[in-house]
């Protein structure tokens, strides 16, 4: 791992951490939803401080360069996150539709009761 990549990992980690903590302060993200970003930020930091860990794993899995392994780890983490987000949004949409339908029907029932 080049010193540049290590420096970029530290910067990436710090920026991620700062962005998410700022959102927590502003009360615009729930703690449950931050966990991933804190883990992500921490992972980048560990990779930057202890490059021997990714280097060891890269050799173990037969990567030519450690940096390739680091990129793969980051991409995989983000893709997994994207997948769970899709599921979550889909679920939220269904719940929202359900609420809209119930609210509309309920309003009609109430109106009929009044008459």
């Amino acid at each position: 791992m080049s010193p540049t990549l290590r420096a970029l990992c530290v910067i990436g980690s710090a920026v991620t951490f700062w962005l998410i903590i700022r959102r927590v302060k502003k009360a615009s993200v729930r703690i449950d939803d931050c966990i991933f970003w804190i883990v992500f930020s921490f992972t980048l930091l560990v990779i930057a401080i202890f490059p021997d860990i990714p280097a060891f794993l890269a050799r173990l899995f037969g990567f030519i360069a450690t940096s390739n392994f680091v990129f793969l780890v980051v991409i995989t983490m983000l893709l997994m996150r994207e997948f769970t987000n899709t599921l979550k949004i889909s679920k939220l949409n269904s719940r929202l539709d359900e609420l809209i339908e119930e609210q509309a029907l309920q309003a009609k029932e109430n109106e009929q009761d009044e008459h």
Partner: protein
Amino acid sequence: MRILAIIPAYNEQDCLEQTIRSLESMCPSIDYLIVNDGSTDDTKQICERNHFSHVNLPVNSGLSVGFQTGMKYADRHGYDAAVQFDADGQHLPEYIIPMGNALEEQQADIVIASRTLAGEAPAGARGAGSKIISALIRLTSGVRLTDPTSGMRMYSRRMIGEFAKGYDLTPEPDTVALLARKGCKVIEVPARMQERQGGESYFDFTHVIAYMSRVCFSILLFQWFR
């Protein structure tokens, strides 16, 4: 036989009143429910002023949600059949009773009003889309439909329950294909339709692309896992 006409309406102030008047005079025995899908025009005021039977969705949610709201209403009020009916005057009320008769006589689950059987096949890009969907449905479920994109469909008591409680059942051809493959009986009756009498269609270019890709993927791929 108690039939409910479900009329989703999104910004239909120009033609809603006329549509409901002709429905009331042609089919006095049929109940209807307008589902005002968060319209920003005077649709809601027109319903209230004329005392039309209607529900208001609090926000614009799309045709599927509007239709499912109608199906839930039909389910909870014990209707024997429900028909999807356009607010824009495209669908003619005189075909509702014949559709109900066909549903009852042939013990069908879904009755589609087919323009093609009445000798009025949709032309141009619409016709091409319709032919592709027909072919896909025939390929995957073996059912021959001449007008799968017709928006005027009647559903039996059993289907009302399915739609009211189902997950992600759109009032579109892919759902018809899915239900047909699951053993529901789908038939068609000939029916003429009119040009829309006013207002704007849900269907602009991006919606057409979204519609076609959803329907095609759904029929070809997703229905096998549902």
